[in-house]
C-alpha cells in the first residue's frame, strides 16, 4: 500500500466525481462517471479488496456506464439550466452536504487509524473467518466463503435485489402483455449491415472468450477473485456486446427476454432452493453441511464447498439474465426491438 | 349492602342493539319492524324492572363484561341512581316508539328502517351510560350515543339538517374528545382506576388547582348537558323529526349529559371532596347563569320546539345545581328532576309534534285558538308545562321542592332566588301558549272550532306521559326511594 498512489487515485476520483456532477453534457458526464468507477476499482484493488474491485470493474465501470449511455441516448443529452429558484436550490444542497460532511468528519476523530491491524474491525470478527475458512468450509477465498456461506443469507437476498431490479425495470418500462410470439425477433435484415464490420468481427471473436472466462470466474471463485456476481455480469456483458455491435434482435435470438426472465427466477430459485433443501433435510436454512448425505462421496466440509458452488451458479444465472433484461429494456425503451 | 352478580344489566343494554338485526331484516314490512321495536322495548323494560327489587332492598347488581387492560374494564353496576335513570329512559322509549309510528307514518318519512335502527342503538347506549360501573364504560356508551344520534338528527338529509348535524357533532364530539378524554386520562394517571365509588376516588391525590381544572373539563366536556356556553347544538338539533327531539333532546341525550356530570361529580370527585375544597360555589354560578339566561332566551322564541329546547337547557342546569348544592335534599332533588323533567318535557314535545302532524304549524304565534281544535293535546300541554314550572299536582313540584329545601340546607339563599325567579320565567313562557290556545275570541282563532286531533298513535303516548306526570305527584315513592338511596351511597 503506497499512500502517495492511493492519494493520487482518491484525488482523481474526487475530480471525476465533481466533473460528472457539473458537466452539462450528460453523455460526457456518464463517461466521466465510468472513469470515476474505474478509479474506485483501482483504489480497492490497491487496498486488497480484489473481489470488490472486480465487481466494480464489471458492474460500475462496465454495465452501469452502458445503462447510462443507453438512457441518455433515449432521453435528452443536454442539461437545461434551471429557470427559477436556482440559488436557493443550490444553497439547500450545499447546506445539507456541508452539514452531513461536518457530522461525518467529526466522527472520524474517534476512528482507529487507517489500516491499523489492531482496530476492532480487524480483531473482532474477521480473524475467525480468516483462520476458519479452510477448516470449516475448505474454500481458500475468504470472501467467497463469507459471501456464500457464513453470510450466505445476505447474499441470497442480494441476488433477490438484482432479480427485483430486473423485474422492476420490466414492469416500469416494458411494453406490457407481450406473448412469446411477440418476442420472435424478425430476421436479421439490412439494418444490421450499417454497423461497422470491423466491430462485428471483433465481437464475433471476443464473445466466446468472454463467456468462457465468465464461466471460469464462476467456477474458480473458490480459489481466486470472482464468483457468481462477477461471472454473471461478464456473461451478461457478452450478450450486451452482441446487442451493441449487431442489433438487439440478433442478441434476442440467442437469449430471448422472456427466457432471460425465466432464467433469472430460476437462478434465485436455485439459491433459495438449496437453502430450503437443507431445511427439509433437517438442518438449518442454508446449512450446506447436511448435503453430504445426498452428494456422492463428500464430507460435511466439502459439502459446504459444493453447496457454495451451487449457489454461485444460481447467482450467476440471475445476474446474467437481469443484466441482459435491464439492458434490453433501457436500450430499446422497453420495446426490445432495435436497440441503440 | 349485598352485591348480586348478574348479566341482566348487560342484557338490558344490549337488547335494543340486538333488535337492530331483525329491524333491518324486516325493513320491507313496517308492521313487523315496529313489532320488533316494541318487543325489544318491552323486554328491556321488563329486565330493568326485574332488577328493581334488589336495588330497592339496598343491593347493587354488578357484571364485569370484559377487562380490556389492567384498571380498564367494560363493566356494569346497577345502583339507585342508574336505576332511576334507566326506568325513565326505558319507559319513555316505549312511549316514544308508539309516538314515532304515528308521527313517521303520518309524515310519510323516508328511510324509516334506518330511523328505527339507530333509535334502538341510541337506547342501548343510554342504558349503558345508566348502568356503567366506571368512567371508561360510561365514556364508551356516551360516544356510542353521540354517533348513533347523528343519523337521527340529520334524518331529513337536506341542507339544514346537514348544517345542524355538523354543529351537533362539533359540539358533542369536540368536547368529549377535547375535554372529557384528557380529563379521564388525567384521573387514571392520578388514581390508577376509573371505577365509580360513592366516596369519590380523587380525594387526596392532587392539588386543588388540578381538581378545579378537571372539574371544569368534565362539566363542560359533557356538552350533552347543554351548560352554557356549550348549549348551541341543542336548538340546532331541533331540525330532527319530533319524536327524536322528544326522546333524545328532552330525555336521552341531554339527560345522559347531566347524568354523566352527576355521576362524575359524585362518584369520581365525591361530595366530600367538593365540600372540603368548597367547589359548590363555582358550580352554582355556572348552573345559575345557564338557568337564567336560557329561560330569558326561551321567552323570545316563537318556534314552539325552539322554545322547548331553551327551556330544556335551563332545566338541565337545575340538575347540575342539585349537585352543586352538595346537600342531601339538593342531590335528591337533582336526581328526581331527571325523572320529573323527563316526563313533563316529553309530553310537551309530543304535543308540539302532534300539533305539527295535525295542523302543520310550528310557531306559537300561529297557534291562537288551537285548544278548541285539539283539546286533549293542549290539556296535556298544560300538564306538561305545570310539571316543568313546578306547580302541583305534578311531579315537577316534588323535585323542585327538594331543590329548594337543598338551597336552604346548604344555606345558599341566592340560589333559592334563582330557582324561584326561574320558575316565574318558566311560567311566563309556557302559560301564554296555553292561554292563547284556549282563551281567545272566535275572530282571533286561527282554527275552525272542530275537534281534529292527531292520529291515535300520537295522542295516546302524550296522554300517557301527562298522566304519569300527574301520577308522580301522588306516588313519587319509587323514584324518591331510589334517589334517596343514591344520595346515601354518596355519603351525602
Amino acid at each position, binding site marked *: 500500500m503506497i499512500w502517495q498512489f492511493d492519494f493520487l487515485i482518491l484525488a482523481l476520483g474526487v475530480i471525476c466525481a465533481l466533473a460528472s456532477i457539473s458537466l452539462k453534457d450528460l453523455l460526457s458526464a456518464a463517461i466521466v462517471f465510468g472513469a470515476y468507477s474505474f478509479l474506485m476499482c483501482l483504489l480497492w484493488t490497491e487496498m486488497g479488496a480484489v473481489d470488490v474491485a472486480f465487481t466494480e470493474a464489471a458492474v460500475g465501470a462496465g454495465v452501469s456506464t452502458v445503462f447510462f449511455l443507453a438512457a441518455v441516448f433515449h432521453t435528452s443529452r443536454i442539461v437545461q439550466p434551471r429557470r427559477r429558484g436556482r440559488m436557493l436550490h443550490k444553497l439547500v444542497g450545499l447546506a445539507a452536504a456541508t452539514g452531513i460532511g461536518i*457530522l461525518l468528519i467529526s466522527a472520524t476523530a474517534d476512528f482507529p487509524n487507517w489500516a491499523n491491524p489492531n482496530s476492532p474491525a480487524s480483531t473482532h470478527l474477521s480473524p475467525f473467518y480468516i483462520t476458519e475458512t479452510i477448516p470449516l468450509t475448505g474454500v481458500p477465498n475468504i470472501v467467497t466463503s463469507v459471501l456464500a456461506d457464513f*453470510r450466505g443469507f445476505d447474499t441470497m437476498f442480494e441476488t433477490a435485489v438484482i*432479480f427485483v431490479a430486473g423485474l422492476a425495470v420490466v414492469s416500469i418500462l416494458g411494453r406490457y402483455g407481450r406473448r412469446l410470439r411477440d418476442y420472435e425477433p424478425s430476421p436479421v435484415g439490412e439494418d444490421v449491415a450499417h454497423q461497422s464490420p470491423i466491430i462485428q468481427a471483433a465481437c464475433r471473436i471476443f464473445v466466446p472468450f468472454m463467456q468462457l472466462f465468465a464461466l471460469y470466474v464462476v467456477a474458480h471463485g473458490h480459489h481466486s477473485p470472482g464468483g457468481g456476481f462477477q461471472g454473471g455480469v461478464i456473461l451478461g456483458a457478452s450478450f450486451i456486446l452482441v446487442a451493441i455491435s449487431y442489433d438487439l434482435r440478433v442478441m434476442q435470438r440467442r437469449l430471448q427476454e422472456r427466457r432471460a426472465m425465466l432464467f433469472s427466477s430460476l437462478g434465485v430459485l436455485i439459491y433459495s432452493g438449496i437453502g430450503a433443501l437443507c431445511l427439509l433435510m433437517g438442518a438449518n*436454512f442454508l446449512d450446506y453441511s447436511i448435503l453430504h448425505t445426498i452428494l456422492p462421496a463428500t464430507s460435511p466440509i466439502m459439502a459446504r464447498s459444493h453447496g457454495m458452488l451451487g449457489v454461485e451458479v444460481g447467482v450467476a444465472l440471475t445476474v446474467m439474465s437481469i443484466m441482459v433484461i435491464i439492458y434490453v429494456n433501457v436500450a430499446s425503451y422497453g420495446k426490445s426491438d432495435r436497440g441503440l | 349492602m349485598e352485591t348480586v352478580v348478574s348479566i341482566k344489566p348487560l342484557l338490558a343494554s344490549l337488547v335494543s342493539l340486538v333488535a337492530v338485526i331483525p329491524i333491518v331484516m324486516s325493513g320491507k314490512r313496517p308492521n313487523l319492524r315496529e313489532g320488533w321495536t316494541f318487543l325489544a322495548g318491552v323486554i328491556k323494560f321488563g329486565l330493568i324492572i326485574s332488577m328493581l327489587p334488589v336495588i330497592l332492598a339496598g343491593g347493587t347488581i354488578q357484571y364485569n363484561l370484559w377487562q380490556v387492560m389492567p384498571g380498564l374494564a367494560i363493566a356494569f353496576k346497577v345502583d339507585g341512581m342508574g336505576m332511576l335513570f334507566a326506568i325513565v329512559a326505558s319507559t319513555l322509549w316505549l312511549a316514544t316508539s308508539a309516538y314515532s309510528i304515528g308521527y313517521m307514518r303520518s309524515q310519510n318519512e323516508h328511510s324509516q328502517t334506518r330511523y328505527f335502527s339507530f333509535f334502538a342503538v341510541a337506547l342501548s347506549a343510554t342504558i349503558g351510560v345508566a348502568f356503567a360501573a366506571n368512567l371508561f364504560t360510561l365514556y364508551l356508551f356516551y360516544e356510542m350515543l353521540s354517533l348513533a344520534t347523528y343519523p337521527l338528527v340529520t334524518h331529513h338529509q337536506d341542507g339544514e339538517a346537514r348544517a345542524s348535524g355538523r354543529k351537533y357533532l*362539533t359540539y358533542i364530539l369536540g368536547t368529549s374528545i377535547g375535554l372529557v378524554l384528557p380529563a379521564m386520562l388525567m384521573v387514571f394517571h392520578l388514581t390508577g382506576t376509573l371505577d365509580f365509588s360513592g366516596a369519590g376516588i380523587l380525594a387526596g391525590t392532587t392539588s386543588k388547582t388540578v381538581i378545579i381544572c378537571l372539574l371544569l373539563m368534565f362539566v363542560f366536556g359533557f356538552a350533552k348537558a347543554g351548560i352554557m356556553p356549550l348549549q348551541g347544538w341543542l336548538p340546532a338539533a331541533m331540525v330532527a323529526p319530533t319524536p327524536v327531539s322528544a326522546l333524545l333532546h328532552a330525555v336521552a341525550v341531554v339527560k345522559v349529559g347531566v347524568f354523566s356530570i352527576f355521576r362524575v361529580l359524585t362518584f369520581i370527585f365525591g361530595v366530600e371532596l367538593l365540600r372540603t375544597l368548597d367547589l359548590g360555589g363555582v358550580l352554582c354560578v355556572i348552573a345559575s347563569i345557564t338557568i337564567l339566561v336560557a329561560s330569558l332566551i326561551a321567552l323570545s322564541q316563537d318556534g314552539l320546539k325552539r322554545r322547548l329546547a331553551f327551556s330544556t337547557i335551563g332545566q338541565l342546569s337545575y340538575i347540575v345545581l342539585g349537585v352543586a348544592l352538595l346537600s342531601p335534599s339538593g342531590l335528591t332533588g337533582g336526581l328526581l328532576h331527571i325523572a320529573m323533567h323527563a316526563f313533563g318535557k316529553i309530553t310537551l314535545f309530543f304535543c308540539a309534534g302532534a300539533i305539527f302532524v295535525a295542523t302543520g304549524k310550528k310557531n306559537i304565534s300561529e297557534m291562537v285558538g288551537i285548544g278548541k281544535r285539539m283539546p286533549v293535546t293542549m290539556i296535556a300541554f298544560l300538564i306538561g308545562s305545570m310539571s316543568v314550572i313546578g306547580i302541583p299536582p305534578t311531579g315537577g313540584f316534588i323535585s323542585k321542592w327538594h331543590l329548594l329545601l337543598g338551597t336552604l340546607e346548604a344555606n345558599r339563599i341566592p340560589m333559592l332566588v334563582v330557582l324561584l325567579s326561574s320558575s316565574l320565567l318558566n311560567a311566563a313562557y309556557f302559560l301564554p301558549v296555553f292561554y292563547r290556545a284556549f282563551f281567545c275570541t272566535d275572530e282571533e282563532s286561527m282554527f275552525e272550532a272542530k275537534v281534529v286531533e292527531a292520529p291515535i298513535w300520537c295522542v295516546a303516548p302524550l296522554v300517557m306521559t301527562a298522566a304519569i306526570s300527574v301520577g308522580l305527584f301522588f306516588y313519587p315513592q319509587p323514584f324518591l326511594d331510589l334517589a334517596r338511596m343514591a344520595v346515601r351511597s354518596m355519603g351525602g
Partner: protein
Amino acid sequence: MISPEQYPVLIVVIPLLSAFLISILGGMDKRFCYPATLLALGGSLAAAVATLCLVADHGIIHYRMGGWAPPFGIEYVVDYLNALVLVVVVFVAFMAAIASKVSVEEELPHKIPQFYTLFVLLTTGLLGMTITGDAFNLYVLMEIAALTNYALIAMGRKRALMASFNYVVIGTMGACFYLLGVGHLYIMTGSLNMADILNILPHLYGTNAILVAAILMLMGAWIKMAFFPMHGWLPNAYTYAPSATSSLVAPLMTKVSVYIMIRVMFSVLGAVYVFKVLPVKELIVWLATAAIIAGSLFALAQKDFKKMLTYLIVAEVGYMVGGVWLATAQGITGAILHIVNDAVMTLCLFLFAAIVVHKTKGHQLSNLQGLFKKMPITMAAFAVGALSMIGVPPTAGFFSKWYLILGGIDAGQWQFVVALLFSSLVNAVLFFRIFEIAYYEPESAQHGHGESVAIDEAPLSMLLPLVVVAITIILLGLYSGEIVTTFIQHAVPAGI
C-alpha cells in the same frame, strides 16, 4: 418433517421461494398468480402465528442461518416485539393480497405476474427486516423492500412516476444513511450482530463516532418512515400508486420503519444510550408533536381522499415516534401498540379507498357521495376504521392513544398530549366530513328521495378482507390488555 425450531425462517422463506415460483408460473399463465400469492402469504401467516405462540410460551427464539453461531453468522431473533410485528405484517399483506384481485386486473391488466412477484417480495423484505438480528442483513432487506416498493408505485404511471422517482432518491438516501451508521458501528466495534454490538457498545458511549452512528441510523429510519419534516416523498407516492399497491405499502412501510427505529434504539444502541446519554429526547418529542400537527393540518386541506389519508399517515408516524421518545413505559407501550393498531387501521382505510377507486374510478372526496346507501356494509366497515383513527372506544385506536397520552402525562410532555388530542379532533372533523359526504346523496339524485337507490356492494374479494379487518380492529381493541401483558410489556426495556 419440519420441527418447530424452523418456524421463524419459514415466515420469510415461504414467500421468498413462492415469489420466484409466481414469476415462473405467472409467465406461463397469469391465472396462477393470485392463488399462488394467497397460498404463499397464507403459509407465511401460519408460520408467523405459530412463531408467535412459541414466543408467548417459551420466550425469545434465536435461529442461526446456515448453522453458524452469531456473531459470525446471521441470526434471526424473534422476541416479544417482532413476533407481534411479524404477524401484523403478514396479516396485512394477506388481506391486501386477497383484496388486490379486482383492482390489479383493472388497473394493471398486463403486469399481473410482475405485480404479484413484487408484491410477495415486498412482503418478504418487510418480514426479513422485522425478524433479523443482524444490522447489515437489515440493510439488504431494506433495499429489497425499497426496490419493490419503487416499482410497485411506478406502476401507477403518470404522476406516480415522478413521485416514485423522488422516492427512489430520498429512499436511497435513507438506506445509505442507515448503511453508513452501520459502518460507523462496525468500525468502532468490529461487529454486525445487533446483540453483540449492544454488548460492546457501553464502553464507547462517550465517543463522537457512536453519536454520529446513532444520528445516521435514526435519520435513515426517519426518512424511510416519512417523519416530519422528511415526509415530502410520501403523500404523492402513496396517492398515485395503484390501489393494490397502496393498500399494502401504506399500512406497512412506515410501521416497519418505526419498528426499525425501535430496534435500533433498544437492540443496537441500547435504551440507556438513547435516553440517558443522547440529550435529544425532548427535541424529538417536539418534532413528533410538529409532525402530528402538521400532518393533521395538511390532511384537512386535501380534497383528494387518498391524499388525505397519506397525510394522516404522516401524523400517525408522529404518534409512534413521539411515544417511543417519551421514554416512559406507558409511552413505549403505546407506540408499539400503535404500530399494530395503526397498521390494521390504515389497511382498513386503504382497502376502502381501493373499493372507492374500483366503483367510482376516482379518489376525490366527491367520489364518496351517497355511498352509505349504495354500499352499506363497506361503509360500516370503513366507519369502524375511521372511528379507530379518531380514537373512539372500543376500537383499537382508542387504546393505543390511551397509552400514548398516559405516557405523555407521565413524562410531563404536555405539548405531545395536546397534539394527540388535537389530532383526534382533526380526525373527527375529517372523517365526519367524509361520513357527511357519503351520507348525503349526490346533487342530481337528491330528488329521488326514497329507498330507490339500489344496493351496489363491492365484489366479495374486496369486501371480505375489509370486513375482516374491521372486525380485527374491534378485537384488537378488546384484547389490547392481553396484547400488552403477553408481549409488549416484555418488549419495553427495563429500567427507564
